[in-house]
């Protein structure tokens, strides 16, 4: 089949709405588009039936053009970065890291993969291989398995085995490491200043593990690493993609870019100009999440801007990837039950107690919540505060009092202040400190670093506010379960 593909096979596209725009369907039929990426916030994902129908149209369009189905990718990392909300939603990577057992990453990845294949999706842009060494990193945080390179590597490798074993491609990201920055490349350009030896000892460790475990793809970061290449961000750097990733790390799979229309990149280059540069640097798949015209023009720009030898090498990799991960849409029913049960089980093992000993729980509670904030465009929020309130009322009935306006509720029992990344929100942080002056419990629903706001009180960490994590937290708060997790990052 590879012979039928052209430079269009290198182009991955995103779109708006519950159906693939007709122009993209036509382009798939003509071989101008090599992959699709779905996002919930753009209206691509509302129900399994809708996603299946949408992807069936894509597969049919490709088939009519004499090609295998286009691979379809999502960011189904778990935690705050989840595109498909109707199936089993897993806790974040950091929550899985907090269980201390890499086998949980393998199980979770396998279950996520089964759910994706049930929708006709063959690519999961996970796991995050970044080591969250920067507490103020706004875009990685709980998406990372932790801050210890060796531990992160163990979990990453386990995730890769679980997902690949279930037939879903993994994308180790964001190469060569997005953890050591306090900026988001969705908004700005970012440098990671670590020297080569530090990168070897830290950032590159999980990527080596992912590659060794058989990751089908690696996603490049739009970050400049002066120690590796003074001139170019990783996505556009032959030294990083060709020499480091291919040469030194021996990666032979698909090198894919992060979205080329992210502003961290568009501030330095137009998406049109970077396409050929990226592929010349060694990239095999360019991701254009927006801009239909640009997506349709990309094929030609690549054909014109990339030397034939390099182009045919990339097309060859894209073809091999497509044959394996461009999957048919199944017809049969899929039971999400086992996945949901596993997700809850992992969440229960992840709730972590930090700081002083917890007060006795099981009696009345007074609970304060703050509205969750979106730290990065990668996050697609639900309404976690309302869910937590419902879960606690189910368990404690009238014995729980709530406030969502920052005041201490009237009632009995310990004061529980649930922060939502207060480390990134000075007003919320001040309010939490003031509320907890007289003692209580801090529940960090998102960033674990919130636990450091009031070191004098005990903290419960969930590493994210997906429903299973909130359910596991509720069980701990009402005395039904122990907090069994272990901190995967240092709070210092």
């Amino acid at each position: 089949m590879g012979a039928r593909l052209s430079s269009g096979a290198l182009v991955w596209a995103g779109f708006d709405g519950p159906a693939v725009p007709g122009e993209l369907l036509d382009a798939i039929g003509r071989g101008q588009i090599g992959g699709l990426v779905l996002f919930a916030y753009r209206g691509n994902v509302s129900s399994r039936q809708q996603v299946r129908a949408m992807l069936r149209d894509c597969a049919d369009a490709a088939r009519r053009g004499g090609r295998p189905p286009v691979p379809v990718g999502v960011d189904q990392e778990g935690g705050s970065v989840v595109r498909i909300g109707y199936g089993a939603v897993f806790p974040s990577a950091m929550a899985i890291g907090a269980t201390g057992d890499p086998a949980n990453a393998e199980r979770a990845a396998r279950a996520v993969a089964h759910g994706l294949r049930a929708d006709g999706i063959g690519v999961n842009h996970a796991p995050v291989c970044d080591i969250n060494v920067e507490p103020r990193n706004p875009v990685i945080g709980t998406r990372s398995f932790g801050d210890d390179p060796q531990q992160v590597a163990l979990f990453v490798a386990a995730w890769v085995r679980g997902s690949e074993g279930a037939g879903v491609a993994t994308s180790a990201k964001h190469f060569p490491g997005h953890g050591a920055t306090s900026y988001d490349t969705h908004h700005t350009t970012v440098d990671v200043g670590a020297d080569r030896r530090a990168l070897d000892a830290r950032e590159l460790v999980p990527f080596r593990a992912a590659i060794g475990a058989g990751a089908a793809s690696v996603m490049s970061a739009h970050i400049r690493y002066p120690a590796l290449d003074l001139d170019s961000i990783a996505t556009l750097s032959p030294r990083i993609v060709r020499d480091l990733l291919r040469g030194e790390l021996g990666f032979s799979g698909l090198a894919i870019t992060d979205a080329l229309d992210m502003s961290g990149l568009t501030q330095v280059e137009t998406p049109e100009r970077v396409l050929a540069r990226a592929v010349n640097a060694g990239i095999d798949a360019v991701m254009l999440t927006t801009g239909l015209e640009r997506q349709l023009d990309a094929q030609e720009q690549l054909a014109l801007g990339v030397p034939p030898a390099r182009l045919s090498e990339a097309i060859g990799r894209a073809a091999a990837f497509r044959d394996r991960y461009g999957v048919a849409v199944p017809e049969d029913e899929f039971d999400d039950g086992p996945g949901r049960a596993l997700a809850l089980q992992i969440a229960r093992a992840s709730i972590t107690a930090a700081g002083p000993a917890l007060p006795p729980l099981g009696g009345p509670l007074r609970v304060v919540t703050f509205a969750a904030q979106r730290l990065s465009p990668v996050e697609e929020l639900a309404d976690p505060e309302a869910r937590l309130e419902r879960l606690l009322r189910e368990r404690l009935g009238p014995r729980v009092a709530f406030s969502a306006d920052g005041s201490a509720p009237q009632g009995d029992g310990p004061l529980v202040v649930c922060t939502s990344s207060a480390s990134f929100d000075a007003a919320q942080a001040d309010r939490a400190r003031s509320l907890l002056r007289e003692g209580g419990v801090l529940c960090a629903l998102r960033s674990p670093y919130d636990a450091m706001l009031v070191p004098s009180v005990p903290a419960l960490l969930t590493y994210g506010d997906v429903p299973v994590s909130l359910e596991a937290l509720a069980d701990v708060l009402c005395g039904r379960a122990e907090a069994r997790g272990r901190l995967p990052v240092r709070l210092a």
Partner: protein
Amino acid sequence: MNRRRLLLSAAGTALAACAPDRTAPLRTLNASRVDTLVASMSPAARAGQMMSVAFHGTKITPALEAMIRGRGVGGVILYSENFDGDAAKLKTLVSDLSRIAAAAKSVPLFFSIDQEGGAVVRISRGATMLPGNMALAATPDPADSVRKAAAITARDLRALGVNFELAPDADVNNEPRNPIILNRSFGSDPQRVAALVGIATQTFTGAKLLSCVKHFPGHGATTTDSHTGLPLLDVTRARLDAVELVPFKAAIAAGTPAIMSAHIRIGALDPAPDLPVTLSRRVMTDLVRTELGFTGLLVTDDLEMGALTQTRSEAQAGYDAFVAGADFLLFRFDESAQTDAHDRLTRGITADAALLARSGESVARIVTLKERFGILDTAGPSGTAGSDADRATADELARLSITVLRAGGLPLRGRVFVASPQNPDIALVTEQPTLGAVLAQRLPNVTTQTITLAPTQADIDRAVASARAADVVVLGSADLFSYPQQAALAKALQAVRPTVLVSLRSPYDILSAPGVSGYVCAYTGREPTLRAVADVLSGARAPSGTLPVEVPGVYRIGDGMKNL
């Protein structure tokens, strides 16, 4: 072929009266009968014979009767309103009018009609509803389809006594914003259009039905409807030779008995400002007669159309058309214009020897065709219209034409919401269902909304709400370039559910709604096409049509999916 060249002594002109090889021969012309008749006609009788008139309503008006009895008009053009679209009433009407003419001892009348199939039909009950030219051209074997459709039309019209079919359309449609031709054309490839025009013409002639190619020298590249304004075709003569004129030359070579002129201005043919082709001697005589060698009947399009009457009266336009070279002048409903025109023509012919000679030629052409096609003998209706076999053939032609260009959302599954217009085609006929109604009969779980061609925001909101309650949407469309409201509806629907656009007219609607998931060209907005499109949308039948026009930048001639 000796019968192809017949001398007509009265006019001193050689008329090519062609019967094609492959069809039954027409009777041999009785030339002396024609000569005798023409020679016997007064200027007033000649003037009348060159006129066609129309009337309002189902009752023969006193004015019409007077035009037949007193002024000897040559023909009557029939519209749906004269017979409620009903074949039986049409047959009675034709018979009544024939009796009036016979009682007045007039030359038997031409009964002409625009029964093109598809977008333009006048008979909707009791005759066979056929897909239009563009649909026929989309079928896998267009030549065979055109032959079958023309044979059916000829059978129907002859069975009803209608003796002059104002078809086929020979325009090459290569203008997506053309408001009037579009799906009435065989396509955008001049050679393909030419071949199919030739087949249609020869089939009509072989079935002893007089027919007429239109709209000379080509209305397919215009963006104005000549009913409302004067379209300008701003192209070079070389381009006309390469595109527009190709089907007309082919039709002349195939022996078309008649050509209808268009009310458009083409500077490359006549630089006079504001002068439509119909009134241009350079076109109607120099080009048609001298250069192209056409010796048959040159008919005007409706003289009441805005393209002409913006600058002159209908009667004056008819007179000018005659002077320019037209033989048969299609006047419309205005009774005073009819009598005024007859008076002017009579005066002109009487006063001017050259015009008298011209009128002799024109009347000879008219009477010759009446003789050759058996009209002088008032042969009367023969055969049956709307036979079951012909309906079955029409259904099959429609099914063969359905063209799927994009298959998102197809075949339809689950809950389907259909928004579709009533009567999207330009010629209204009664009692036609909507696409939604037809699909609701075919599939379970169909909800429908009938839309106007210009849906309001409230209509759009209602449709979007219905779409949300469905899994997939079907939107029947008509001329999106003219109705941005429909394009807005398409966009709003696609934003919530995969939407299959079914173009009920031209294939160009995709240009205004590029993002739809599915795109199907039905080419026609009524039965039997609606049933055929339902067969394909539901997956009961694989599509087989291919596009006969280029959709600029999107689809090429020949595009079309063979399986879903």
